[in-house]
């Protein structure tokens, strides 16, 4: 990156921003290649939608060489929700083993963060850590914060003063992350929780942000936590929704001896998950369905 006072020639850089593959061609196609470098991408979803799965998978796919859409990079995983899903990471690492000579888990640095102050404290350390890693075999080029909401939702009251302080901190943290993202060409993925929308179109939360009029998950109207101030801090926002489908399947196999009816209907529950682009500077309003299996998060062709 040149000095800030001289303009950059846009043709000097590659004409498409570098992206980090998610590890599935269908989701990658939906995201235009994956999670973009040099900016902050936010992943919004209610609990149990697959945010952490997505993050874990990204830390593994980031290690892939650029010929496979990865960044050939290590990653830094800041987790604020406990415990860190070590077993799941280990399980996923079998699917995404870039080569046999090293264990992918060796290239994922995990740090727990308990409070906003701690996050601010460790920011300079993170920066020097990334700087030092630039000469190693796989330099750090991905930061995951899972989740940012957990830090902010516990420490602050719902008073004017606290909310003001809170949004000040949003901009501070986001400014630091963006500066690092530009300086080192990092991809930054931040997860966020959701809040239920009691009355649609009520107050700030009813405000339409991005492509989707209202976000629905599990059949309820919801909206991303942390409000509009935080929405101003991220470059792209992705939303994972889940909806339970009840599939009624007739079953002839049950013997008609006891009940006498001859057949019984079975109700199967199926979770339909989809990923939506709420807003992103480089993406149109698209979405794709995905499923979570033992091997990881994969898109489903419709």
């Amino acid at each position: 990156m040149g000095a800030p006072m001289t303009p950059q020639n846009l043709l000097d850089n590659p004409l498409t921003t570098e992206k980090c593959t998610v590890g599935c061609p269908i989701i990658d196609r939906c995201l235009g290649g994956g999670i973009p470098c040099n900016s902050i991408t936010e992943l919004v979803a209610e609990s149990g939608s697959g945010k952490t799965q997505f993050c874990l998978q990204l830390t593994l796919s980031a290690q892939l060489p650029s010929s496979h859409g990865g960044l050939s990079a290590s990653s830094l995983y800041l987790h604020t929700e406990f415990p860190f899903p070590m077993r799941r990471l280990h399980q996923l690492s079998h699917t995404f083993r870039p080569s046999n000579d090293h264990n992918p888990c060796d290239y994922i640095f995990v740090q727990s963060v308990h409070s906003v102050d701690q996050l601010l404290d460790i920011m300079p350390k993170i920066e020097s850590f990334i700087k030092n890693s630039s000469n190693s075999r796989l330099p750090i080029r991905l930061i995951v914060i899972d989740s940012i909401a957990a830090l902010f939702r516990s420490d602050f009251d719902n008073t004017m003063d606290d909310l003001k302080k809170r949004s000040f901190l949003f901009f501070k943290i986001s400014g630091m992350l963006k500066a690092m993202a530009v300086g080192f060409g990092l991809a930054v993925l931040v997860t966020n929780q959701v809040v239920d929308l009691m009355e649609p179109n009520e107050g700030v939360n009813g405000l339409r942000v991005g492509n989707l009029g209202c976000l629905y998950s599990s059949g309820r109207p919801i909206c991303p936590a942390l409000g509009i101030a935080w929405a101003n801090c991220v470059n792209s926002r992705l939303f994972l929704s889940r909806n339970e489908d009840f599939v009624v399947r007739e079953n002839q196999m049950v013997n008609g001896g006891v009940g006498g009816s001859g057949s019984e209907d079975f109700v199967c529950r199926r979770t339909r998950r989809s990923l939506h682009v709420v807003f992103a500077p480089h993406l149109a309003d698209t979405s794709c369905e995905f499923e979570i299996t033992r091997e990881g998060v994969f898109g489903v062709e419709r």
Partner: protein
Amino acid sequence: MEVSKLPISATQRGKLISAGYTSLSSICSASSSDISRGTQTAWDMLQEEQESLARITTSCADLDNILGGGIGCREVTEIGGVPGIGKTQLGIQLAVNVQIPVEFGGLGGKAIYIDTEGSFMVERALQIAEACVEDMLEYNRFLRNDCQVKTQPKDILENIFYFRICSYTEQSAVINYLDKFVSEHKDVKVVIIDSIAFHFRHGFVDLALRTRVLSGIALKLMNLAKKFSLAVVLLNQVTTKYTEGSFQLCLALAMNVMHTLTSHLIFDQHQLHIQLLAEGSGIPHQEVKGSK
């Protein structure tokens, strides 16, 4: 009689002397038109405005109508809206549209894009540039015009001077430097700042200082717009204000900057909704379209 001996306050005496009035007779002989040097009649102003009635189209007829034909040169326009409504898209669109050659009714100028948020994506700019070239070819076919479309999408990208800013100090420095930069690059016709607010919403504890710095910046941009007759476009975030029991959208830092700017636009889904039409990578025509 010497001015220095007049029974008036020291500051007034100083002002008179520095303006070149040393004696009472020199003050008496000064006519009103001498004193009002640098002023302009409204008639002159109107003439001037009609001559330099250069406007940059937004590629959206409805929006152009509201703006009186597009974003005006010699003006500072502030554009606000919720995240994801298309402020950056409009910014990139303007950076491309300012380069439409004069034969095609454009300005044939260059653009300065000051990115404070990191939302400027080169691939998106390239898409919009391609659509713009496509539009010019279409225009040729339609009017059976003989103008040659010489512009290539890559040339359009080359004519966008892109600054990536990571702190408010850098932002102030670049804005101070603009005067020099533009005097070296006279063909710059639009300066886009995306967004003016981001770095000022953290790092400033002293709000009075923030107000002073921001009004300084606004003043500099106004002067820049007048001096080089270029358009300055400020993209701004919105925040909510709690008044009379309900939440209202308002521009971030608006209290500070508002009275110094020429025009404002707030995009809101209720009043004017900018939506991205014709999306999807398969469709070549990817531009920001607005609908009322």
